[in-house]
């Protein structure tokens, strides 16, 4: 069981991801669209880590917020002809937050399987709605013709994805900042308490339920923003942002990186998406096989994910005073 300290100073290792992102931008200009995709999923993974790793809520329905944010951003453009990127982003965040607080308030009274089922049912319903409401969402054809104005009037979303990459990077930075502050605050400490021993938290009078709803809503908002970013970089939304699959994917990415570690959310998507980009194209059957086996191996032998492994092998990186969750 890890201790928790209020040391909020940023360790030098925490700047590495941003340096790496910068290097990526300059060294690999042809892969920027993949890079933007990775950044978006890191943001998504962060939002999931908030409730999974820190609050202990297992969900298979997080794609609901991601997808809702994605579609909102798109629909704002196609139906309301509002192409200003920040407005689209804000709209997506607001709608996702709304769904987050609405569903959270209702379903967070349940636990375990019931909760899991409810999250799944919600994303399934959204998928069904998106599928049927062709006039709004494009249905199975997807929502095309989404327009995004140049950011601040200058930076156009170009084919190479330069603008998209930097845009997502900044969004990710802000999201990371928010999440990090949250985790290192008394609020974060309480989340850890809820995760580790709910009964005792109730006993000491902590408003468990409302805190959970709050963190769930925050997580939903961030996921919604990530979804909107996806729509804006592609100028397109398809049905595959909703349903079981993206939820499962992001869960796998997070586990791979390491749950409850903040940076697991960074490493997981990077490894997963790069591997997928290369392997899935060459050997689609073997891709599933490989990723499945890897997952099983991780669960059985490396419960802390990649970061957990790094802990064992590279004590140098071990954070002594950090709000790290021990793996279950």
């Amino acid at each position, binding site marked *: 069981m890890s201790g928790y300290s209020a040391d909020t100073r940023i360790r030098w290792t925490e700047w590495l991801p941003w340096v790496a992102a910068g290097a990526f931008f300059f060294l690999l200009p042809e892969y920027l669209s993949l890079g933007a995709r990775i950044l978006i999923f890191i943001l998504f993974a962060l939002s999931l880590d908030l409730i999974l790793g820190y609050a202990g809520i297992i969900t298979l329905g997080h794609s609901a917020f991601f997808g809702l944010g994605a579609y909102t951003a798109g629909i704002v453009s196609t139906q309301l002809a509002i192409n200003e990127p920040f407005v689209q982003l804000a709209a997506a965040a607001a709608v996702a937050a709304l769904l987050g607080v609405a569903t959270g308030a209702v379903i967070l009274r*349940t*636990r375990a*399987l019931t909760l*899991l089922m409810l999250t799944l*049912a919600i994303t*399934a319903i959204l998928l069904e709605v998106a599928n049927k409401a062709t006039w709004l969402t494009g249905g199975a054809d997807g929502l095309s013709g989404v327009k995004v104005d140049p950011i601040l009037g200058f930076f156009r979303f170009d084919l190479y994805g330069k603008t998209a990459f930097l845009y997502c990077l900044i969004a990710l930075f802000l999201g990371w900042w928010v999440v990090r502050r949250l985790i290192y605050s008394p609020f974060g400490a309480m989340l850890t308490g809820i995760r580790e021993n709910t009964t005792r938290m109730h006993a000491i009078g902590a408003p468990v339920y409302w805190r959970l709803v709050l963190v769930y809503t925050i997580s939903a908002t961030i996921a919604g923003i990530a979804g909107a970013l996806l729509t804006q970089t592609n100028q397109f939304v398809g049905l595959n942002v909703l349903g079981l699959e993206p939820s499962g994917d992001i869960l*796998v990415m997070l*586990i791979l990186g390491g749950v409850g570690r903040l940076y697991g959310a960074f490493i997981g998507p990077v490894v997963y998406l790069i591997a997928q980009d290369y392997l899935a194209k060459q050997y689609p059957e073997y891709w599933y096989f490989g990723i499945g086996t890897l997952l099983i191996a991780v*669960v059985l032998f490396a419960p802390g994910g990649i970061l957990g492994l790094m802990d064992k092998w590279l004590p140098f990186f071990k954070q002594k005073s950090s709000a790290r969750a021990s793996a279950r």
Partner: protein
Amino acid sequence: MILYVISVGLSVTMGLMGFINLAHGVFAMAGGFILSTAMARFGVPFPLALVAAFVLVSLGSIFLEKTLYSRLYARGELSQVLFCIGLILVSMAVARLIYGNLAAPVFLPDYLRGQVQVLGRDFPTYRVYLIFFSSIIILSLWIGVERTRWGAMVRAAVDNRGMAQSVGINTKRLFMITFALGSGLAGLGGALGADILPVQWGYPFEHLVYFLIVVAVGGLGSLRGPFVAALLIGIADTACKYWIPALGAFLVYAATIAILLWRPQGLFGVRT
């Protein structure tokens, strides 16, 4: 009805072992493939192929249980969920490698094809047969659980494992047998349903939601629960698609949410 046969095994497994086996669809898929291969490749007649599906999947599940699942009993739900996702992915890849992209072709024996007249309306023979067969399975299960000693042991272990163990019940072996039974039933269900729910490599993920719904709504650990749930869902789904095609599966999900909120432990589940 297929849903029931497949899901009852899941309900028992989850209720008994507290293990969220999302990979249950894998066993169903395996059953479907075994049936198809047995009939197409080896010319095995339909009823025998069904038996083969049941037996082979049961045996296979025992192997999996011993090697992999048993390590995860003590671990948290998250690990179990992830393990199952991993298992699903691996099995999907294997299925694709062996069977390619196509659905397993199923050629029903002639006596099961066509239509049959029941109460003045035409019904597809096969579906009538399915209802009939599933009812027999339910009956056997019910008798098995309610009336036999083994059933009593299972129920005891579900209710209170510690007590059951101290009374001398070998829970480990019980789990293994029950898991095998549950998985075998899944295989049987998959095989039976192969004509209606085509069996192909994406099967475990595609139908996962439905299996889970049946189990969650029915209630963990109960036998009647999934039956009622599957019945309700099946009827609601078909009726909805018949009367209001525009709503489709929407109703099923909405109903699930409503039921789960009203009774989080499911219709017949045991409140812990």
